[in-house]
């Protein structure tokens, strides 16, 4: 899978699970690992999504990855 394609797939996973299931970074990695992708590749794609602000880390008794729009005031 191309990196841009993977980024879209990760974003979609988080978008579709919003309000239902919260994903930690490692949960995302495990999810895409099943599709034959390397951990490092998935991690890099997450990093780019976070750096762009599309996704953010959130904290509620544990850290998760959620949609960037959840961050207030940014």
């Amino acid at each position: 899978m191309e990196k841009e394609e993977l980024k879209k797939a990760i974003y979609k996973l988080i978008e579709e699970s919003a309000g239902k299931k919260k994903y930690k970074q490692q949960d995302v990695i495990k999810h895409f690992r099943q599709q034959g992708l390397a951990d490092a590749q998935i991690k890099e794609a997450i990093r780019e999504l976070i750096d762009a602000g599309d996704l953010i880390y959130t904290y509620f008794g544990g850290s998760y990855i959620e949609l960037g729009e959840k961050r207030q005031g940014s």
Partner: protein
Amino acid sequence: MTKKYDTPLLDELEKGPFPSFVTEMKKAAAKSEMAADELGLLEKSFRDKVTYWKHGGIVGVRGYGGGVIGRYSQLADQFPGVAHFHTVRVNQPSGLFYTSETMRFFCDLWDRYGSGLTNFHGSTGDIILLGTVTENLEPLATVLSMNGFDLGGSGSAMRTPSCCVGPARCEWSMIDTLDITYDLTQEFQDELHRPQFPYKFKIKTVGCPVDCNASIARADLSIIGTWKGPIAIDQDKVKDFAKKGVNIQEEIVNFCPGKCITWDGNNLAINNSDCLHCMHCIAKLPGALKPTPPFGAVMLIGAKAPFVIGATLSWVIVPFMEMKPPYEEIKTLIRNMWDWWNEYGKNRERIGELIIRRGMREFLEVCGLEPTPEMVREPRNDPFWFWKEEDLEKKPWEEFLK
């Protein structure tokens, strides 16, 4: 002029010899509306005997998942200055050393972007800047980085590592705690800023078994300096202590947990093979006794506060490791344990809890460590245990019965 509140209850805490946090809040309140409302809010908590802070919210700076703790008051209408009152954690310099110039920078920075209230330091070791609003976070982080500072950790991440004063100003430090802390912090910037673990991971490094940073009680990985050589004795200095009134027999010999010291009134003798390396005799006779090389560190794992399974102290996983730059051995060990914890840990499960759930054997195998008696207080006392297929093929008795 900032808003003024009557604070009869808090005023009672300006009495007495110990420096008053209320006085500090009033100083800040004279210059900052945020601090003024923080003072008013606290007086209300004292009157009502309850906290008025909400659970944290989602705030942070671009690219990072930690370093900022969102904080909002429940009483924003009444105290608008604390509607947003976020905490910023800034990674402290190793050993908590500062210069006046650096401190003034922090003051200028915080008067501009925050409430003017700080903590030197938070429990984990970070510089804590208390009380700012969301829109100030990006510029604040930018100015910090322009001046060589960076945010600390929060959430399910490696937390900001910390250490004791170490070789900077202590004759007992057997490892370079400041350098180890600096080096590990730089090595693991990604894990510090981007929370990717099941839960928090704390690393605390101390120079000797006195443990002036409470590493063994509150670090997931405790790195504690120790020694293997004999204790060097300056007999003249021991006699000086005796002359000055130290009862060597009572205060030193009788307290030795290894029962390995003797004193005939003239000569102190130590049977080093029974020494437990506890530091009592060395610490109570400063300058007379000292540890000698080889120096290294004991690695211990798993300390944490009570939730969920009960408080734990760290336990030994490596009885002795040399600690020389670039510290590759410890870095590899840390990476191996993180990979395992990330794979199997549940949300909010500390590494120590995972070890207890899945067993020390699995942890040791993942880390490539052999079992040794130094890891336990005593062997198990119930007569059932696991055997793996590969164990059944081994015949260790043939070796030890030779």
